[in-house]
């Protein structure tokens, strides 16, 4: 018998290699990331071990034997660990109650908790230091009066206080991860358990929980690393209480400005980077594979567990939770922004004012910073989305070799703590290697892209993978070119995801604090940094007005995204 493949002309094999535009795209993205992400990070590690020109562990010895650094290390691990534990303990029940039971106001709560994910965490720190200040905190004073206590019950300037605020602002990470996994789980898996004789609680214990375990661990790790690399909260709450963390120490060292300071910062950053990479490895490359994929036959509504006589009680508990964790802090910040004397109640005679609001819209430095933030966030989001779209196309629609390389790099970038990214850029991009973009907005935009681009990419990837390629093929067979098919069929279908992805990059960049703190110059101050300096050094009310304005923007955009995606919007 003759084999038909033998007659293949030898040229055919090579033709594919000639100038496939996909290769050029991959090469461009990889090139960009190599220069601005991989090289700086590698150089950072190199610097830590070769601070004197040759290999030495001197810097490590010096840094890690210094007691203040040691306590910072311990504080970081302890606060991150407990935030992780409490975060998951809050997030799992909430996700279950909202996803699987007849809790009152499920939809509202879901939107609220997802929205808090987009709120800058330092807003929480600002609120809680007003509420639980050991002497004048308004919640402390209130509780003291009600329960007739001799002293304030809480002190926010403690490790416990730090854990409280970190948990309150990082549990949404876990909530979103767990909720999403729960939505993907075929409800008949739980129904099969009920019909086999298991009570709702036994079902939760023996089916739902074990099936969700990989996602729960992934969610836990996410909270851990977010809390460990947080800067806003520990710098506002921790520093006044002499509780240092690795991030605050790193930034202190950089601010010293000397070469030794930079070396010490680098050495500490390596520690943070190792933890982050370890977490990333575990959650993406080990757990990611273990997550059970279940194909559901038809889209049955999940069987709603009737909470019965507990329904009202549990709903009230969730209301209380939302009140304490979300509403009260936000209202506190909003009220601070219109209070003249923070020591007096806002509604007392002559204590209400709009002057701080007028200030944030008139003061030149604030307007300048806002402009910088807006500009760099728009650029980061736009360039980020261009790369995201190309990446999504390569990942979902092609089988081209090497498409996973930039995907991997982008994932690593987003898993790297902000402070490490910024530090590595400072060291590598200030002229030492031919590129000097230090003190420009460009360095800011690049840092933002490395950190937040993945949010956009994931959104587009998931939208595109839900569109069957046959839709594009049907357009091409009808006579439209590839480009026209994209424009007429694919683009309209993924448009909501494009908008959502753009905002998911834009939002965190717009109010970014950590990277900006390291990368700003006199002309490139950002909104986050401006707010932080007002909060810490000048005037808390002005900072509150800025924070409240940011809250309005966050919730406004969140509402817009919900509308655009018919309430399907999730991160």
């Amino acid at each position, binding site marked *: 018998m003759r084999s038909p493949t033998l007659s293949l002309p030898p040229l055919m094999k090579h033709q594919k290699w000639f100038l496939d535009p996909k290769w050029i795209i991959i090469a461009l993205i990889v090139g960009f990331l190599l220069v601005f992400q991989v090289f700086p990070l590698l150089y950072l590690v190199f610097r830590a071990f070769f601070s004197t020109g040759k290999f030495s562990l001197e810097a490590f010895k010096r840094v890690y034997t210094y007691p203040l650094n040691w306590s910072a290390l311990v504080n970081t691990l302890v606060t991150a660990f407990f935030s992780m534990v409490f975060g998951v303990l809050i997030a799992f029940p909430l996700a279950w109650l909202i996803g699987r039971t007849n809790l009152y106001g499920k939809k509202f709560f879901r939107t609220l908790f997802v929205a808090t994910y987009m709120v800058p965490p330092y807003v929480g720190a600002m609120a809680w230091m007003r509420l639980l200040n050991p002497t004048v905190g308004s919640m402390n004073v209130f509780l003291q009066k009600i329960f007739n206590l001799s002293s304030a019950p809480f002190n926010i300037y403690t490790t416990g206080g730090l854990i409280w605020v970190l948990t309150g602002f990082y549990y949404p990470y876990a909530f979103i991860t767990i909720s999403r996994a729960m939505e993907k789980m*075929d409800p*008949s*898996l739980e*129904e*099969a*358990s*009920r*019909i*086999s*004789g*298991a*009570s*709702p609680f*036994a079902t939760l214990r*023996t*089916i739902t929980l*074990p*099936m969700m375990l990989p996602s729960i661990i992934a969610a836990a790790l996410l909270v851990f690393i977010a809390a460990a690399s947080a800067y806003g909260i520990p710098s506002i709450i921790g520093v006044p209480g002499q509780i240092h963390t690795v991030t605050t120490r790193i930034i202190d060292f950089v601010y010293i400005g000397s070469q030794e300071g930079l070396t010490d910062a680098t050495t500490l950053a390596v520690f943070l980077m190792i933890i982050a990479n370890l977490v990333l490895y575990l959650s993406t490359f080990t757990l990611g594979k273990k997550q*059970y994929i*279940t*194909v*559901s*036959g*038809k889209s049955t509504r999940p*069987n709603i567990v009737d909470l019965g006589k507990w329904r009202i009680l549990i709903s009230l508990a969730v209301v209380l939770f939302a009140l304490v964790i979300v509403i009260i802090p936000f209202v506190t910040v909003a009220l601070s922004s219109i209070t003249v004397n923070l020591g007096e109640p806002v509604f007392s005679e002559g204590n209400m004012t709009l002057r701080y609001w007028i200030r944030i819209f008139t003061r030149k430095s604030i307007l300048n910073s806002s402009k910088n933030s807006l500009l760099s966030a728009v650029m980061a989001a736009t360039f980020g989305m261009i790369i995201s779209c190309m990446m999504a196309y390569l990942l979902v629609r092609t089988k081209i070799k090497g498409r996973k390389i930039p995907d991997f790099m982008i994932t690593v970038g987003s898993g790297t703590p902000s402070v490490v990214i910024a530090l590595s850029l400072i060291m590598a991009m200030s002229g030492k290697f031919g590129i000097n973009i230090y003190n420009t907005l460009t360095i800011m935009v690049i840092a933002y892209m490395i950190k937040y681009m993945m949010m956009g990419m994931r959104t587009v990837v998931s939208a595109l993978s839900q569109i069957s390629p046959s839709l594009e093929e049907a357009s091409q067979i009808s006579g439209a070119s590839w480009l026209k098919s994209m424009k007429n069929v694919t683009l309209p279908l993924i448009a909501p995801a494009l908008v959502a992805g753009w905002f998911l990059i834009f939002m965190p960049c717009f109010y970014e604090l950590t990277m900006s703190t390291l990368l700003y110059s006199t002309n490139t101050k950002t909104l986050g940094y401006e707010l932080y300096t007002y909060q810490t050094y000048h005037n808390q009310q002005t900072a509150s007005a800025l924070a409240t304005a940011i809250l309005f923007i966050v919730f406004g955009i969140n509402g817009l995204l919900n509308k655009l995606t018919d309430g399907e919007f999730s991160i």
Partner: protein
Amino acid sequence: MSRIIIKDVMKAFGDVVVLNNFDAEFPDGKFVTLLGPSGCGKTTMLRMIAGFEKPTKGEIFIGDQEVSSTKTFVPPEKRDIGMVFQSYAVWPHMTVFENVAYPLKMKKMDKASIKEHVEKVLEIVHLAQYAERIPSQLSGGQQQRVALARALVAEPRLLLLDEPLSNLDAKLRDSMRFEIKEIQRSLGITVVYVTHDQMEAMTMSDIVIVINHGDIQQIGKPTEIYRYPVNQFVADFVGKINFIAATSANGEVQFKNSPQRLPYEGDLKGDVVVGIRPENLRFIKTGGDLTGTLLSKFYLGDVNDCRVEIGGEQVRVIAEPKSFDKHTEGESIQLRVDEFSVFVDTGDEDHMKILT
């Protein structure tokens, strides 16, 4: 005792009524099929029997136990029911053995008896050698059997099957159909089976309940449903049928668009629709009940599938295969009608079509 009585059950999701006055009794040990197009409410009925949905109105009894009414509601885990889901719902984090053992574990049975029971039921579904596998190592058909074994292991008083064969390929579907029927017969268990596939319904059921738009259309044995459909919907949904508009008077039905007629002794008068199944029309040489013109013929091997025009209406005829060479297209043809039904003309144009 596991007959099911459903009394006047109504179910609405918000304003949308999906089931209306469902009133039926499923006798003990019978294979009952809920048959209907998708969205007709059959799955909702099944889920109400299982306890996953609460009826908006009405009562459900299993055996002598009232499981659902305005006053009582027995949750699924207390109903002593086995169920096979459309997506199999085999738990991916447990082995085949653990999956099947689960209902017994919930009954707090001791380990030795669990092992004995599970092995026995795995034997029945031909999975004995797969006990230690995890589900992702099994084919769809095998996962299906795990689901079936899990549903049967606790010897429930009732087995519910929700389109269990719809995710299997055609060959496997055929063999599973007979296997399920065989298991039901040997265990003598009451089965409620939901499907939109009339072939499954016909081959497996003792009783078929045809549902459309949330209303029961007909309850009967497969032969009754097929030979004596009560309305055009049932006739159309179960099997193939030709509809011809006619007028009934003086002991005959007179076709509206042609001078042809058939003798009819039934009670319906006035505007009617005559329904004739394609296999009840036969080509004969002379003295046919109807005459027509052969439009086209398709040789299918076991039958000869023809289109015949009778007085302006296109009619499908399933003729014996030998007839293929005897007639040519365009030829005038005599037809004998073995059996036909007459329905009230509801004016519903939906059914005036040749079903292929």
